[in-house]
């Protein structure tokens, strides 16, 4: 019970602070620092890595960034080992690690790795703006998926079915978009498809009190099976009629889209891409600044408390799960109406689960989930780009990158994240 935690707070017991040393962080830093030393500094290909910022089509042209792998490798390794050593000193002295250490270390590591891997590639140059813009494109459905998770789990319903929602959305958008030739109809169909998945989740989780994780997993399998079946029976037979949806046009905002790096990200998107930023803001604002959000969070934390002040817990949960379906449906439509021009079997490829990881990594906060999804989108895109550039690292390893990052992130590398207290617990009135 929540009461037990309240009565046991050691907060006022004593002001004395003694030392408990944890060596996990300095050891991790040291290991990664040594990897950088051996791999990126000693193993430097002794070449230049070229990062192109403009591709010539923009009005503002910025010169390329050229970095020597040996210089970056060695200076990066020295900085990282320095941070590791400082971490050892701090822990030994029983002091807390400085807050800047993790972000600085991570940034230096990523830069060193990028410079090394590009420098070692057969074509040692990369279009940086494209790399970043591509990350945003890949992250967009992840972000919609995470928002769907946030909406469900903040209200206390675990949403493992993000994958299924995205896939149902992608399928419905493709088939209805193809048949009607209308983008609006495609998006609407995606929303309806995903909402149907949500409703099944909501009914079983809230009304019939079935274990929410199990319902979610079953839904994923169900949607994958159903869409694959329809794909191979209906779509393959007549792809022109059933699997040739129209695509959203990119809306380029004049002048602003020419800003190097940021232009393509913020001002050169499809309507769904712009919609993603709006959705992140709306969900954040709704959850933390409105009456609806206060009630949703209360229901997710302590449903009985919400009930005793007259809030209808289960109906609020139900509509939140439905709303989550709407958001995930738009994310699903993004697959077939923006990124790809047709539907393919299980085309979401586990991204719903990465969205789930982004939600946890982002601590059940829409803004946090946004950045986490971006990180995953970046590693996903990097693995594509590097495979094309021809790196010394086997492409299979590069393809593992986003998942490896996910594991690190969810394993609590950046501190423990705390789920809403009543997440996954059905509310039953006595």
């Amino acid at each position, binding site marked *: *019970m*929540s*009461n*037990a*935690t*309240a*009565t*046991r*707070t*050691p*907060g*006022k*017991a*004593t*002001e*004395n*602070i*003694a*030392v*408990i040393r944890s060596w996990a962080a300095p050891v991790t830093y040291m290991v990664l620092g040594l990897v950088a030393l051996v791999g990126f500094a000693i193993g430097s290909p002794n070449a230049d890595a070229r990062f192109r910022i403009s591709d010539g089509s923009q009005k503002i042209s910025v010169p390329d960034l050229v970095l020597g792998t040996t210089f970056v490798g060695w200076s990066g390794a020295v900085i990282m080992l320095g941070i590791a050593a400082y971490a050892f000193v701090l822990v030994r002295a029983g002091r807390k690690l400085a807050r800047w250490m993790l972000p600085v270390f991570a940034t230096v590591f990523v830069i060193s790795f990028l410079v090394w891997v590009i420098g070692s590639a057969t074509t040692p140059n990369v279009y940086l703006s494209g790399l970043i813009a591509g990350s945003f494109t890949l992250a967009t459905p992840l972000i919609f998926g995470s928002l769907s998770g946030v909406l469900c789990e903040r209200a206390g319903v675990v949403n493992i079915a993000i994958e299924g929602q995205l896939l149902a959305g992608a399928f419905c958008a493709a088939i209805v978009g193809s048949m009607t030739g209308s983008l609006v109809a495609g998006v609407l169909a995606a929303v309806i498809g995903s909402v149907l998945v949500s409703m099944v989740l909501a009914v079983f989780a809230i009304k019939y009190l079935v274990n929410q994780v199990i319902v979610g997993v079953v839904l994923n399998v169900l949607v994958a099976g159903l869409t694959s079946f329809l794909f191979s029976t209906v779509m393959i037979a007549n792809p022109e009629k059933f699997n040739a949806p129209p695509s959203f046009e990119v809306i380029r905002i004049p002048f602003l889209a020419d800003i190097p790096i940021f232009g393509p990200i913020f001002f050169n998107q499809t309507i769904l891409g712009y919609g993603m930023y709006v959705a992140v803001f709306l969900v954040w604002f709704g959850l933390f*600044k*409105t*009456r*609806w*959000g*206060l*009630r949703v*969070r*209360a229901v997710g*934390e*302590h449903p*009985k*408390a*919400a*009930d*005793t*002040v*007259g*809030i209808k817990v289960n109906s609020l949960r139900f509509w939140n799960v439905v709303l989550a379906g709407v958001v995930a449906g738009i994310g699903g439509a993004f697959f077939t109406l923006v990124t790809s021009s047709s539907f393919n079997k299980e085309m979401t490829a586990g991204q719903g689960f990465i969205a789930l990881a982004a939600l946890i990594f982002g601590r059940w906060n829409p803004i946090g989930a946004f950045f986490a999804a971006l990180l995953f989108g970046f590693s996903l895109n990097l693995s594509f780009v590097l495979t094309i550039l021809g790196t010394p690292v086997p492409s299979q390893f590069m393809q593992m990158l986003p998942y490896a990052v996910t594991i690190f992130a969810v394993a609590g590398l950046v501190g423990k994240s705390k789920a809403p*207290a009543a997440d996954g617990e059905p509310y039953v*009135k*006595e």
Partner: protein
Amino acid sequence: MKLELRGITKRFGNFTANDHIDVIVESGQVHSLLGENGAGKSTLMNVLFGLYEATEGQILIDDKPVKFNGPGDAMAAGIGMVHQHFMLVPVFTVAENVALGNEDTGPGGILNLEKTRARIREISDRYGFGVDPDALVEDLPVGVQQRVEIIKALVRNAKVLILDEPTAVLTPQETDELLNIMRQLRDSGTAVVFISHKLREVKAISDVITVIRRGKVVGKADPGASAAELAALMVGRSVSLTLDKDAPTLGAETFKVTDLSVLADTGQLLLDSLSFSISQGEILAVAGVQGNGQTELTEAIMGLLDHVSGSISLDGKELIGRSVKQIINSGVGFVPEDRSTDGVIGTFTVAENLVLNQYDKAPFAHGMNMKPAVMLKNALKKITEFDVRTQGPDAAAGTLSGGNQQKVVMARELSRPLKLFIASQPTRGVDVGSIEFLHRRIVAERDSGTPVLIVSTELDEVVELADRIAVLYKGKLVGIVPGDTPRDVLGLMMAGASNEEAETQSGTEGKEPA
């Protein structure tokens, strides 16, 4: 405003929790509902608050019948309730908790907490609550959380305020403060319904007392009635409120704690170099306000905590560094403070719960097999011996009332020969009749030559049981004093004054109720 419950009956299946109960509550009164745990007081109030629907009967406000479909309706009718387990969202601020369900909003449902904050400050100032609207609830002490609950009701203009066992989680000082608050509320015209089984508090505060036993009103009592009379009415037979125990016969000092320190994961010092020892045949009771290291002390002895330093020895054997199982097997009996989470497994049967500490040993097991027949026989014996009210040994422990769960835990822990017995809050939430019985069992365990360590935040209980009293304050041992030390001295020590300071102060200040 006059609130009347007329012929309220509430049945759960075959079980009648409330049987034609009539109660009239009027403004400017403190009306106590006195009854043992499981007598049906909380059920009655949940009916009144719209959480349960009555099987029969009527609720009347100012002689007009009303019907509540949920707590929202009850609140709209001017009824507020402070639940035994607080209905507060721990990660919300005070203002958010108070606003919840009753929010002031701008256009588009945008929250506006300013008005709520102002209301909280106003009420807080009027009654001297000292509540900061922007504090996070989880950071607040239990007593303050309770005031937040009261504010929640007052903000909604409650004319009737129901307090369900409000003192169960409070320290003696906090209890006194709460009683004062209740007096103020009464004087300002609120009807206060006080649900309790604690005779002293009921006598101190009530204008009217209604006694409930086994779901029925058994009578009204006068606040001037003696505690013994009230107890007899409540339990249905005469009970002894004082414990008769002989002077202890001390044996060898077999349990020694030396320089025991415990750190929290954050590095906070929870226990600071504690040293004490307990002899065979002696009860050492630990007094202190909740959260001063008592929990950590018992858990450190049981091997449940990390970051423990110093020495804990039993019969010359060191306990620190051993597993919980080894410690149990070396003859330590342990009654944890929170029975529902740490004491019993709710989904297991009573019979299974009764052997949790010895299920893998003879006579309950033979090799890999458990012996259900032996367990059943054991359960039947313990159920009679400890008077556990259950539908049978096969009932899930979670279906028992709190007091009966506690009896199951005590029965289990006292059912084998012990070298040390530790009981944390041994009678929390247990009814008067059972407290007497459990206390006698603890003393019997002492008399059989076991060192006994009692931890209790109820000063009454400490004074009643202890041969010696150890007072903890902020993780430090303030002192160990004889069992007959006056309450006011103990009260001062619980606030951190040393033994000598406490004695001189209490001499000059005169008697203060502890």
